[in-house]
């Protein structure tokens, strides 16, 4: 009897200690036994909530089918992924049957599953990946990750009347945000505390498009119609972004070592500003177009383009360059002066399609905005 009990206890311990990462499936209504082990047994939101809170572990992947998931409490967990084994939430199109789904099953635009958070948050701790997920609500931190957070192809809209609430919250270090859309009408489309990367994303109609801290790379984004497009407070690389129709496009605050390169500042009350004029804030190859004031406490820098260039149709979300603009092929890039030979061209701003007749621009590259 004693042997039997000790065997059962050992087995129980082994199962808990060595339980493997799992692939799980979630739909709005759930299916079968709701265990999540297949689409036929998909978890509903309440099962997903319980599993995430109690059982999630590094390497787990939750495939979440298109649909509206209404939160009636915070969706959160204290469990963590690891630097190399994240816990992932991946949105897929309605009717996906592959197990596991393949990239062609991934959801884009309005097909992405929507977490209707209202006054609650979808908030997790460390080393999580959100891919192809949408969220709406008014919580102070709508979609939130602490350390090692990754958002890809996600959209968050915080419509709260209360000031300074985040659509995306990244409270820790080492975050990555790619190909996302953020809106916080009275707050921050992204509120980020540590070092990270923000690329190919669209932040608009917010008090602040992105509020980032130190050692952040901000590349290829569009900041549109914000009180402040990009607010930075440290030493950052800000490259190939388009700042359009903001009260202030870029506010560098007290930053002392900014590299501001290949950015397009158009139709802003103030294009770029810092608190104190310092030689260590570097600007090169930027466009200053249609701004009331181009720069404050900064110089426009080397190779600046100062002619007014009207983007194609920014009011309707088209920030592409017009035909034959002076921003084409005028960006900083590898060139003969760096020791390389050949023709290298890079446009200024987020748009890299070369519309110039006979030009040899960078061409259209991945991560375009067409799928938002």
């Amino acid at each position, binding site marked *: 009897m004693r042997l039997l009990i000790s065997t059962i206890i050992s087995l129980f311990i082994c199962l808990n200690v060595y339980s493997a990462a799992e692939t799980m499936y979630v739909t709005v*209504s759930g299916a079968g036994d709701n265990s999540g082990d297949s689409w036929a047994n998909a978890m509903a939101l309440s099962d997903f909530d319980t599993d995430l809170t109690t059982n999630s572990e590094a390497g787990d992947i939750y495939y979440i089918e298109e649909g509206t998931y*209404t939160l009636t409490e915070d969706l959160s967990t204290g469990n963590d992924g690891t630097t190399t084994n994240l816990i992932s939430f991946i949105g897929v199109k309605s009717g996906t049957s592959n197990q596991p789904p393949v990239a062609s099953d991934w959801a884009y635009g309005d097909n992405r599953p929507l977490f209707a958070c209202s006054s609650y948050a979808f908030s997790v701790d460390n080393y999580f990946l959100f891919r192809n997920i949408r969220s709406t609500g008014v919580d102070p931190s709508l979609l939130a990750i602490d350390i090692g957070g990754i958002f890809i192809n996600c959209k968050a809209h915080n*419509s709260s009347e209360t000031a300074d609430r985040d659509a995306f919250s990244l409270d820790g270090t080492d975050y990555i945000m790619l190909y996302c859309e953020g809106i916080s009408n009275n707050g921050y489309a992204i509120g980020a505390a*540590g070092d990270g990367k923000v690329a190919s994303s669209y932040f608009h109609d917010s008090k602040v498009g992105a509020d980032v801290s130190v050692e952040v790379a901000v590349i290829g984004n569009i900041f549109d119609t914000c009180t402040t497009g990009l607010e930075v*407070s440290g030493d950052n690389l800000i490259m190939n972004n388009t700042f359009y129709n903001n009260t202030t496009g870029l506010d560098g605050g007290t930053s002392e070592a900014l590299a501001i390169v290949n950015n397009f500042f158009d139709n802003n009350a103030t294009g770029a500003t810092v608190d104190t004029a310092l030689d260590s804030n570097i600007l090169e190859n930027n466009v200053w177009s249609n701004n009331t004031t181009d720069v404050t406490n900064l110089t426009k820098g080397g190779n600046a383009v100062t002619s007014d260039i009207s983007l194609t149709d920014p009011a309707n979300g088209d920030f592409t360059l017009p035909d034959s603009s002076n921003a084409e092929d005028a960006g900083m890039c590898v060139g003969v002066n760096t020791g390389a030979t050949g023709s290298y061209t890079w446009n200024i701003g987020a748009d890299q399609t070369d519309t110039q007749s006979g030009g040899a621009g960078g061409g259209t590259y991945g991560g375009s905005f067409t799928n938002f």
Partner: protein
Amino acid sequence: MKYLLILFLLFSLPLQAQEVNEKYSYKDFLNQSFKKEKAEDFNNSIIIGSTFYQEWVEGDIKKDIFPEGMTGVIFKKCNLDNVEVPVGNTVDKSSVNKKIKVQNDLEDWILDKDDNPVEPIRKEKFVEYNLSIDPADIPLTKKEISIIKEKKNEIANINNN
């Protein structure tokens, strides 16, 4: 026996007639009003998994958003916080129908029946940042920045320096 079966079917028909309301289930109706919609589109149906949450801005906490005469609706797995659900309709226990209001700390708090704050929605965050969850400790004047964001910024500044 035949008559018994007919009687059973007659009595069970009303139960079977209450079907899931496809138009209003699994949808996001954040801050929307339905006062101009037809009550018939709602009546005697089951609405599942939708949010009708109304963010408090001013006036009464709970907002009257449903059409006049709406009756017989069962709300399951719905978010009805800050929503006045008319008599004659049912809020299933899987739904929420609390009162929530932002306080001077710029955080959302759950209110009691007399509209007094009871506990913050983000109770876990308050605990994580060693902030009091006692309503008596809510600041007497409105803060300029949320008490939690203030704490986060403090920590970020320490880490970044």
